[in-house]
């Protein structure tokens, strides 16, 4: 009769520490490769629209007239194709997940530097505003 097949495992589990993490009290383990969320360095963006064109969920909208870069976090599936295609490497992948949303929206708009001009473009680079939430 094979009734007590689990005994060894059960005893081992009884005298060892829990296999689970006390998330969110303890941060989730993340590796260097983890795709958490997309971040932008607005000073480097040249509004070339490559990320917008490649995005499979159309989460990114770039306006080169008013120089804004906008991401819809509810649409973004964190595939990192924008990070791969960005020619100036202004997009990076952060390893931490975005915290759960508690309200509607999810749009994030950044004012970016835009294409480089001949004169030293000090003003637009400094005038970058971090996260300006809509709604």
């Amino acid at each position, binding site marked *: 009769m094979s009734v007590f097949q*689990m005994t060894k495992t059960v005893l081992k589990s009884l005298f060892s520490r829990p296999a689970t993490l006390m998330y969110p009290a303890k941060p989730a383990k993340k590796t260097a490769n983890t795709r958490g969320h997309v971040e932008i360095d607005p000073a480097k963006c040249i509004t070339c629209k490559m990320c917008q064109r490649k995005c*499979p969920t159309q989460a990114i909208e770039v306006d080169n007239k008013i120089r804004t870069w906008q991401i819809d976090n509810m649409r973004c599936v964190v595939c990192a194709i924008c990070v791969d295609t960005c020619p100036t490497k202004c997009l990076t992948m952060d390893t931490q997940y975005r915290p759960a949303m508690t309200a509607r929206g999810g749009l994030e708009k950044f004012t970016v530097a835009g294409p480089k001009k001949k004169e030293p473009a000090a003003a637009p680079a400094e005038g970058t505003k971090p996260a300006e939430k809509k709604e």
Partner: protein
Amino acid sequence: MTKQITVPFGPQHPVLPEPLHLDLVLEDEKVVDVIPTIGYVHRGLEKLVEKREYTEYVFIAERICGICSFIHSQTYVQGIEQIMGLEIPERAEYLRTIWGEYSRLHSHLLWLGLFADSMGFESVFMNAWRLREHILDDLESTTGGRVIQGVCKVGGVRKDVAPEKLDEMLKGLKNLEHELNELNNVFLFDQSMKHRLKGIGKLSSEDAYQLGAVGPTARGSGLAIDIRETGYGAFGKINFRPVVEHGGDSYARCAVRAKEMFTSIDIIEQCIKKIPDGPVDMKVTGAPDGEYFSRTEQPRGEVIHYIKGNGKKNLVRHRVRTPTFTNIPPLVTLLKGCELADVPVIVLSIDPCIGCAER
């Protein structure tokens, strides 16, 4: 003659992770007829090929299923590569095979856990999922995603794995194999498991063949159908034999999956030993012009992606035939004549993945 009554099973049922609706026609406690209904989670992913470029569509193909995600993207890109006549680097083939087998491992562990849960064996459920976490950790550290890996692309893979990491994975698998042995003892030899599964939901090999059963459902009935034997990816250079059981009942299907995990570990070990150095991707230009049926073996069985392009960036047609869809007719046969109390176990024994089946 006893009066017939119809009992709805699903779409919301504690044992089902996904919505599948079965109308069970009962005579007393015996199931005499089953009318399955699907269509609760249709997302229209196949239609999206007309709106997305074929290179971006890889990410959408991957999201057809949440568990066999990697193999869906692999099947899709293999089809595109065949149409375009691309010879991808050998290292990429090996990496795809390794990740594919990792996803088979985590899918089977998930299923074994859910299966144990369906008959109230909670501690096995917890243990199976604890072991699954090691595999997900390896997947996350090599690809960046736990279940949606997103590493396949037309012309290769997006990430390379360092040789040190491969050695580490090999060591991890050795430990895992030891722990899996203990878990498998419960699934294969425990008295209560045998009592609950043996002789329940019998499918003869003729029925399995006639009704088009695939994957572990067919292999549990004695049919040695395994698309990996066609040698796609790196499988042509790997020695392995498909696991076949001849019982045809729920226990045989459970045993196939339990034993297949060791085959997967063996395949990964062979791949890591044989993997050549070199690039992992190549530059792809142009667009696919032609059509192709791409077939691979998923954890649940054979999946077919039909891809048709006309030389433009957007494909013309993409059609997926998923293993769960083909396993529904065998499921109806399995359920006829069983007791009402056995229905949850039998439904889970084909490993239904409705998200796949409806796309």
